Structure formats: C-alpha cells, structure tokens
C-alpha cells in the first residue's frame, strides 16, 4: 500500500495567493474569518463538496492555492448567497468563490469534465468574442467539451427545438465588438492585482 503524505509544508503554500485574493474589492473581509462554519452549515450544496466553504476560506487565507483552485467546491457553488447573508463577519463568500473560479479558469486548473467549469469558461468566452451568447452553440460546445455521447440522448429535444425555430444555426453577435473588447481587456499598463481579472484567452 502506498502512503501519501498529508502534511502541508509551508513551502507548499503560495503566501501571495491569499493576499492577492484579499486585495480584490469585495473579498477584503476574508481576513476577518473566525472559522465558525456558518457558511458550511447553511450551504445547500456543502454535502457534495470536497472542501467545505469554511475550509476554502481557511485554505485561501493561508495561501494553499493548489488545493483551492483544484477543489470541486468553487464549481458547486450555486450562488444562492445564503452564506454571505448569514456570515457573522459579513464576508462576501459568494464573491470570493467567483474570484477563485476566475483564477482557476485563468490558470486552467479547473476539474476537467465538470460541466459548470466548462460552461462558465465557454459562456465567458462567447460573450468576449461576440458580445452575447447563442444558446444553441453554447449547448453544443458544452456537450462537445464534456460528454458528447450524452448529447445523442437529447436528439428528440433537439429536433423539437429545431422544428420550432428555437435552435438557430447562425451565431448571434453585436456590432462594434472591438470596442467591447477594449472595455473587457484593459491596456497592459493599467492591469494590476486589484483589476477584475478577465479571461484573456485568444479565441
């Protein structure tokens, strides 16, 4: 039997990671967390999570970047905001989850095959490229990148949508997309740790 080490050395942590997250507007109060566990207690999805929201807060603050960004927790968050409402320290936990999701996408460490991560990435990418989404294309992309075999099971629904004209074959897009891109991608000189990170992937 192979034994994995479970100890966490200080070298395993990235001290700047916690500091960077806490520097993002809305995430500052993470510093105040008293680890009471209210967030996990109210979270309707905490029963499926590998790390509870409370553990994500502790790991983030201590800079355990790898554990946090590879965790399923941030992708299971359904943004119901129950944790943010009940937190006795008024930490905006849902907003921190979003910040962590963006970082996971940027670092490409999100769990492969988990549809929420792929959906978030494709959704953002499509908005970035076209200024709006076309649901038919998005759904196809999602199935292709997660489990394309499952799409075959949906053929009857797809056929019905096509027949009713609800499955456009043309990609919808706004005009003056270059201007949108300039808004979404700040010039290199005004990027900083506090600027909202965007998906800077080239299409």
């Amino acid at each position, binding site marked *: 039997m192979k034994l994995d080490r479970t100890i966490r050395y200080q070298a395993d942590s990235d001290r700047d990671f916690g500091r960077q997250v806490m520097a993002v507007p809305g995430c500052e109060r993470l510093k105040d967390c008293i680890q009471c*566990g209210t967030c996990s207690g109210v979270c309707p999805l905490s029963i499926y999570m590998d790390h*509870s929201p409370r553990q994500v807060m502790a790991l983030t603050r201590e800079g355990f970047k790898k554990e946090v960004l590879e965790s399923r927790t941030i992708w299971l968050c359904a943004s119901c905001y129950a944790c943010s409402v009940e937190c006795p320290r008024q930490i905006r936990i849902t907003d921190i989850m979003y910040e962590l999701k963006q970082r996971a996408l940027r670092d490409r460490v999100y769990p492969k095959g988990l549809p929420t991560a792929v959906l978030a990435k494709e959704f953002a990418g499509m908005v970035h490229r076209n200024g709006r989404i076309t649901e038919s294309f998005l759904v196809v992309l999602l199935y292709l990148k997660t489990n394309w075999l499952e799409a075959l099971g949906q053929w009857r629904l797809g056929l019905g949508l096509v027949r009713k004209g609800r499955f456009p074959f043309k990609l919808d897009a706004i005009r003056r997309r270059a201007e949108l891109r300039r808004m979404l991608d700040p010039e290199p000189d005004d990027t900083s740790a506090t600027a909202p990170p965007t998906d800077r992937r080239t299409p």
Partner: protein
Amino acid sequence: MATHCEEIRIGFYVCHCGHNIAAMVDCEAVARYARKLPGVVVSRDYRYMCSDPGQELIRQDVREHRLNRIVVAACSPLLHEHTFRTATERAGLNPFHCQMVNIREHNSWVATRKQDATRKAKSLAQAAIHRVRFHKALQVQRVSIRPEVLVVGGGIAGIHAALTLANAGKKVFLVEREATIGGHMAKFDKTFPTLDCSACILTPKMSAVRSHPNITLWTLAEVTQVEGFIGNYRVKVRRSPRYVLEDACVGCLECIDACVYRSPKFPDAFNEGLGKRKPIYIPFPQATPKVVLIDPATCLNLKTGKCKQTCLEACGERQAIQFNQQERLEEIEVGTIIVATGFKTFDPRRQPLYGYGTYPNVYTSLEIERLVNASGPTGGEVVARDGRKPRAIGIIHCVGSRDRKTNVWCSRVCCMYSLKLAHLLKEHSEAEVYNFYIDIRAPGKGYEEFYNKLLDDGVHFIRGRVGEVTDWAMTPEEEGRLVIRVEDTLAGCVRRIPVDMVVLATGLEPQPDAQAVRRLFNMSCGGDGWFLERHPKLAPVNTFADGVYLAGCCQGPKDIPDTVAQAGAAAAEVLSLIDKGYVEQEPNTAYVRDEDCSGCKSCIPLCPYNAITFAEDRQKATINETLCKGCGTCVASCPSGSIVQRLFEDDEVFAEIEGMLAYDA
C-alpha cells in the same frame, strides 16, 4: 505671587518619556530652540519628567533662577497635568502658572518622520511659552458632598452597592423599575461554576435591603429628572401606583386566591411567559418587598370598573388594596449616584434561522432557567411546550453575539451559562445534550474546571456555528423533530443532528432606554450602547459625569462575581468622596462680564449643563460656576463677547496662536 508688572521668568522642560518621545523628537534640539525664546530662563530636556527627580528639577530651578512660569512638553495633560501643577505648587508658585504641551499623543506617537516631529514639537513649545506669560493665578473651588446616595436599579449590582453603603451608615435611596428587586439573578436556578442555588444566595441580601434602616426602597419607580452637580444632585422619582399599600400588605396572598379570575390567565413575565398569573399577583415567592401588586392592564376593576372586588373582601380590615392609588412624584437630594440599570437579553426573533417564535420547542436561555427552576412553571421538570420530554437537546452558543449583523461583542457569560444549563438539563432529564459553539470562553476562577467536568459528564461539544434549525426531515429518525444543520468544523463535515429541544444562548444587550438614561445622568455611551466608564483600566466605575458611578452590566456584559466586585468598587468610590466631604473643581469655568452682557439669553439654551440662568433684576446672564464644566460653548456663542473662560481667556489663546504661527522652520 506673580503679576503682570513682574518680569516673566519661564522654565521649559522637554521629557523624553523613555523612547516614547525621544525616538521621534530630537528633545535636545527642542530644548536648545526654546532657550532662545523671550522670557525663557531655563530650558532642559530630561528622561522622565514625571519621576521624582524630574519634579525635583522644577523645584530646584524655581528656587535658583527665580522662575515664575513653568512649561512642560511631555505626554497628554490627561495623564500628568495634575503631577506638574502639584510640582509647580510645591515650588511655591500658583499651580495654574504651569502649562503642558502634548508632544507624545499629538506628536511622537503619530508622526512618521523625526524631522517633522521635531519641528512640530518646537512650534507647540513656542505656542505654550507665549501663552504661559498671560496665565493668571487661579484658586481651586471646593464643593461639599451630601452624604445621601441614589442607587438606580435593584439587581444584584444595585443591591450590593446599596448594602455596602448602608452598612457604612450612609443613607441610600434604591430605585427599581420592576415590582421587586433581584433583577435577572432572581430568575436563575443555579450559578456557575459552583452551582450555588441562585435564590439561596440572593434572597438574604434582598431581605437585608428591605429591612435596613438606612435604605429607602422604591419599587415600580423610575428616575425622571436629575439636576445639580457632584455632591448636590436634586433627583425626581416617579412612583407608579401598585394599587396595594406597601405598609399595610402582609403578603398573606389571600387576595390572589379570592380574585374573580378562578385560574391564572395572563402570561407571567417573571417566568418568561411560560407560566400564568392573575391580575393581582406577586412576581415570585421571595419577591422583595413581599407585597402583591395589581396589573392595571388586566384587572377587571381597573379596566372596566365592573368587578365584584372579591380581593377587597379577602383583604378585609387591613384595607391594603387601594384602587384609587395615583402616581406619586418624590423629590430627593443626594450627593452621589450609582447607576446599575443592567441589561436585556437579545431577542432571537431577529435571527430567524434559529426558528425562535416559529418552532415552539426553541427556547431562550432565560426560559430554560425558569424551566429547570424548582419554583418555575413546571416545578423543575424539563417538558417542552408541546408536552414532550426531550431525548436530545441542542444548545446554540453566540446567539446575538460576535455577529456584525446584530451585536459584535462577546457577551462573556453565555459560554458559562450554557455549560451550566447543559449540566442542569442533563440532571433534570434523560436527554443527550449537544453544545454548538464557536469558541468556549471560560476565563475565570474554576471555570475551566467546570468545562472539564462537563466533558466528563458526556455532554457533546460540536465546534461550529449552527446554519439553521428546521423541522424538515430527511431521514426517518428526524421525523417530527427539530434538526440542527451545522458544520462540525473539527471533524470537517456537515452534520444534521435531530433534537427535541433547542436552547438559544442569547447574548446581552444594553437596555432599550439606555440612551435616555444616559442623557438623564449626563453620562456617555460607547459605540456599542453600553455606558462608558471614564477609563477602561484605571477608572472602570467612574463616568464622565462627576459623582455618577457605574455598577454591573449597564457598563458591559459581566458575570455575577465581576458585577458584585464592580458594585463594591462603586460603593467604595462613593464612600471615599463622602468621607472626604468635598471635591476640588478645576477653575477653568466661565463667567459673564456684566458690563458687556446685553441680556440676549442666547447662551442659556446652549449650555449642556444648565449652568446659566438669567438674573431678571439685572437683566444679565449669570453662570453657576459649580455647574460649569468649562466646555466653552457659551464663550463661543456670546455675540457681545461678554463671557470669559478662565485658562482660556482671549489674550492667552491669541498668544498661543501667535506663538504657533511665529515658529519658522
């Protein structure tokens, strides 16, 4: 004594305060600079001016150099003005010929560059040196102290303070808003950590208050007006009608049996609404005074006038029941006041996730105190509101404490009383008891040992703040019960724990009328609403109003030992004042120059201390200097500039400003 015609000879001293000042201010340079200023005869820097050799330095210089003004640049005058004034006085000068410059709190502690801090110290020093030239010789006023004391609030704090003072032979007025003294402590079953019976240790003190010849006890009474100043307060007390004569009633309680309501019908406030009472009742068997009272809101005769008045018959010849009793206004004169108005517990309806008010089997801790109490509504039997005997009980800590949405503070007593209730609930029932806590705070004599005892007793401790209390069952075991959903943060998983009874350890809050009481006694409140002590460490029972002291939870959450200790301290402060017989007042008061006063009266409503009156005969405003606190509001507002404040006269202030501006780096 120095006069204006006399040559001004100033001694200037810079204190290093160890590293506190010297690390940021070049003290030697400041002393060198001051030496060149007009009037300065001696200028020195010294390591600790407040030390004996430092004060001796001043005395020696006054003797050798015939100084008549002293300027000390050191810490805040709040700390050492008295020290240096006394040193000046001992050197044979008028103490008010000394001026302090604050170069620590206002300068070295907040500055970031030594260069700037030194410049600021020099300019502040120059301002004071300019000003001190105009200082006049002032005399300290003496105010005598009346020996009577008013104690507001008859909880354990008020009781202990009143008894201490009365035993010392002082006359005490104890004013209590409720029908009986005893406060919250009278409701408790046991006290932590010794598990003393609360009533057994409290009721002897209560009856001692009642029978003490030096204590005048007024229940159902409230202070409505406070006028005057330290040593001489005039207080008005409103006494609500009890409809029963306290002197005539012997507490036989026959009237209660005779009431036309056959059975108790109205929720009983003393039992937190868990029991019922009649319109004529006594709060609890040991109530002090042991006199019944009639609740006008529920008594048929007082409400409608149509009642057989069977209580009157039962009372018979004693004629203690008087339906026509009216509200009375008492006026008393006291020298000092102890405020011990206590606290209220947090209303858990403000945190709906715990289901208080929704699920009948969710209780507050005070309700459980009554439930487990032998004289409580169930006689000490643990039965839930729906008649069930609980198999499992969950105690939720920190309800309305340590929460930015409600109260940020730790209420200090909840951990310990939750442990006590866990013990009592286990003793009175067969139930498994779960404690849900964030941190167990057991800092006190014997407290940690009590926690260990509960661990030994097999009480469950789950570290995690409860997410919700629900009746929504997910497993057969949870059917028909309350479920507590919580992350067991030590085990690292989310758990659902079915219980039959939930106890909310509600935190402590200031009384809802704390702001009104604060204004009544001219005290201050902290940002959290508790009454503010003058200094958190060194004057914990004093307030910013002279002659008004604090005791108990109105100053902040505390347990019974701390409350009693504070009440004793407040009584000791009062006794030391009374025994001395007088206080000295800072002569920084204002006075009106009659020749300039136009009689416009604009200053009168502005005075926060009601010190200004209008002399109708002369048509001039006059200031009562014992009431004046030297705030300067009237001085600034007077349109004709006729009000002058000692120590802040125009020539002094202008000279100070000139000195500040004349400094040129």
